[in-house]
């Protein structure tokens, strides 16, 4: 059955479907959608007559456009249809639901769906998320346009191409393409967190589960603690452990500290031993102290290291460390004696030793220093990171400026969302 051109679903709903003699078979109630290449397509029409529901396969259609829908077959030959959860049907499952616009990185509501002819199939080309879609559904699109013309303005179309849509329902995810998956991975983790914080916890969790480990780890650390806990608790331990392992140890520790004891233990046991030890050490500190904020990954070399060797080593080590702007100088027993900024290191004579160029008057804090004091020191001395040492001067970790800022000014998605 050839279908050219394009139409909106709201324009054909409740329209009569005719048989070859021009008699009405029933009214169009819904459309069954299946996965297609390159876009999902309509596989059948669902028709309602006298409270009975029938299914009309796409191949039995003769004409399908805004004005006329007619079939090759007669009403008597139609299969009765029972609404079920297995099929994906357009009005019930897509219309009026929330979806993610992966291009604009926000949650929108489907006001209407646009179909287009492609190889004689009707494919889902776009969703309408604008005021025009609402007006069309209310039957006042024309009126709205006339009204806007009075002000010499145009009623804008606000369509999002199906390619850029990331559904929230797991069922819808099955028919969506691989393209949006990649698009979502390219979103900034903060945007993903914002999206998750705007939908219900169920939808948020299902959306999260679809992310790859790396993206998931990034997004998780941007979320509010109770949302983090809810999502991780709802996941299989294996998958949760993979994600936690991907996060920097300080953030991993934050997440684990909000989980129920046994779940946190279970996850820790599935994590690689070295990583787990780092996290465990951080877990022992109070959350609002330097110990709770610090990360125990840093770059530290011995004082006799030559600058050129340090740079070589730095190239190898820096990939796995989050904050790399200072190279700490420690004695063989890990006692902190100085620091070299990355800038000084690069500008120094390659044959100089670290001990010659290092800054020795270091500002340090102990693990139990309050977070506000840490913030004040970082602010006062314009530091990028602040070393945390124990009472004997052994370097335990560093607090990076971004972790402090997150505590004082939490990012939008971490703040309590709306709650009117």
């Amino acid at each position, binding site marked *: 059955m050839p279908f050219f051109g394009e139409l909106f679903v709201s324009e054909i709903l409740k329209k009569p479907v005719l048989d070859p003699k021009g008699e009405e078979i029933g009214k169009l109630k819904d459309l069954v959608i299946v996965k297609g290449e390159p876009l999902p397509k309509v596989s059948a029409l669902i028709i309602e007559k006298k409270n009975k529901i029938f299914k009309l396969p796409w191949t039995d259609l003769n004409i399908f456009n805004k004005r006329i829908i007619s079939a090759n077959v007669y009403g008597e030959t139609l299969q009765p249809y029972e609404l079920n959860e297995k099929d994906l049907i357009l009005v019930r499952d897509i219309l009026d639901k929330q979806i993610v616009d992966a291009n604009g990185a926000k949650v929108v509501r489907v006001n209407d769906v646009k179909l287009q002819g492609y190889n004689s199939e009707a494919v889902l080309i776009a969703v309408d998320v604008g005021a025009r879609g609402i007006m069309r559904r209310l039957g006042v699109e024309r009126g709205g346009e006339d009204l806007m013309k009075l002000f010499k303005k145009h009623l804008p179309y606000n369509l999002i191409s199906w390619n850029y849509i990331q559904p929230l329902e797991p069922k819808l995810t099955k028919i969506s393409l691989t393209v949006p998956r990649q698009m979502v991975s390219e979103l900034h983790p903060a945007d993903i967190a914002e999206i998750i914080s705007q939908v219900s916890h*169920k939808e948020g969790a299902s959306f999260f589960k679809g992310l790859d480990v790396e993206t998931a780890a990034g997004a998780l650390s941007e979320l509010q603690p109770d949302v983090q806990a809810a999502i991780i608790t709802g996941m299989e331990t294996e998958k949760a452990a993979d994600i936690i392992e991907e996060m920097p140890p300080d953030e991993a520790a934050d997440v684990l500290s909000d989980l129920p004891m046994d779940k946190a233990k279970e996850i820790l046991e599935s994590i690689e031993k070295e990583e787990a030890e780092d996290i465990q050490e951080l877990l022992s500190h109070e959350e609002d102290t330097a110990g709770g904020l610090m990360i125990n990954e840093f770059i530290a070399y011995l004082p006799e290291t030559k600058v050129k060797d340090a740079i070589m080593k730095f190239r190898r080590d820096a990939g796995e460390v989050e904050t790399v702007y200072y190279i700490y100088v420690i004695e063989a027993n890990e006692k902190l004696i100085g620091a070299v900024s990355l800038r000084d290191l690069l500008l120094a004579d390659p044959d100089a030793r670290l001990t010659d160029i290092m800054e020795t008057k270091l500002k340090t804090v102990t693990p139990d220093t309050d977070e506000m004091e840490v913030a004040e020191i970082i602010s006062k001395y314009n530091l990028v990171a602040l070393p945390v040492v124990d009472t004997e001067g052994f370097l335990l970790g560093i607090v990076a400026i971004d972790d402090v800022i997150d505590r004082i000014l939490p990012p939008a998605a971490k703040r309590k969302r709306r709650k009117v």
Partner: protein
Amino acid sequence: MSFWKKIALFLSVMGPGIITANIDNDASGITTYSVAGARFGYSLLWTLIPTTIALVVIQEMVGRMGVITGKGLSDLIRENYGVKTTFFMMLGLLIANFGNTVANFAGLAASMEILGFTKYIMVPLGAITIWILVTKGSYRVVEFILLYACIIFVGYIISGVMAKPDWNTVVKQTFLPKLQWNSEYIMMSIAIIGTTITPWMQFYLQSSIAEKGITKEHYKASRLDVVIGCSITDIISFFIIVTCGTLLFPYGIRINEASEAALALRPLAGDYASLIFAISLANASLLGAIIVPLATAYYICEAMGWERGVNKTFKDAPQFMWIYTLTIALASLLVLIPGAPLVFLMVLSAVINGLLLPFVLVFAIFLINNKKLMGEFTNSKMYNYIAWGTVVAVICLTISWVVTSIF
């Protein structure tokens, strides 16, 4: 689970139910209770018992939907009943809540006049403060203020005790009422139910529970929050009626507004009681003026799929910001214009509220029995009988209230 663990759990989910129920005692609620007490003494106290039961039954269902689906009521209605139904419902809610906001600013104006401030300064000041608090402040501050502002309602309990009522009579009249069969009495008892169970609070409660991210494991604690909230509301109402019933009723003092009650109390009960009454009214009005416009803007944008959020700008979320700002600006302006049709607006708001309520409640019952949404948390058969009974009774009463307020 240990006792302390249970307490900690409750404290973490506490809030939505108690805040919602307390904001329910806004300016129009307090007016109704004051007028009822002054006109009929203690003889209407009994109506609070069925009202509380109805309130608990309805709020529990709405709260349960918030916990299980994690979505707001306007969201669910849009997803299940389409854009047309939702659109007209939201339009009704917008008009009704505009009327509510006007009533709250009028309450603020009247209480400020009693306290000796001119309304021409205090109302604009209040409106601007509210606007800035919500759009520029963080929501955490707002929630904190809201929860603690509820404590001021204790003022009504204090003034009730200070009135030294004869507690024997009060208890007897509450549980063994002498019913009167005149139209004014019946109208008043209907008004008490009508002002206590409103459409907007169903939307408000469900959203705040969904927003708080309460999960089904904590549903029982959340239910307790709702039940406590409903009880507190009606305890406050109880003391307002008792105060006016003790002090004003015996002298045959008739009042039409809550502020008149505060004024009439001065010669009879002294400055303190009058002051407490006026401050509590100001507080209730301010709370209502903060929440009602904010909530309205939220549900409408949620249902229509527009950007929303208090930390958004006019550019990011134009519809949200305009609805919120215009509601506050127009309502406060109307209160200050001499001869503005305030009474007409409030009656209109009451009528629309009354017309909306049946739809909201019936949708709520259909949605809560939807297995796809609620899974095993649908109503039990028994609970459905109770729920339908309550809803049908409330609907009948509200409709007759609407009819009487028109004529």
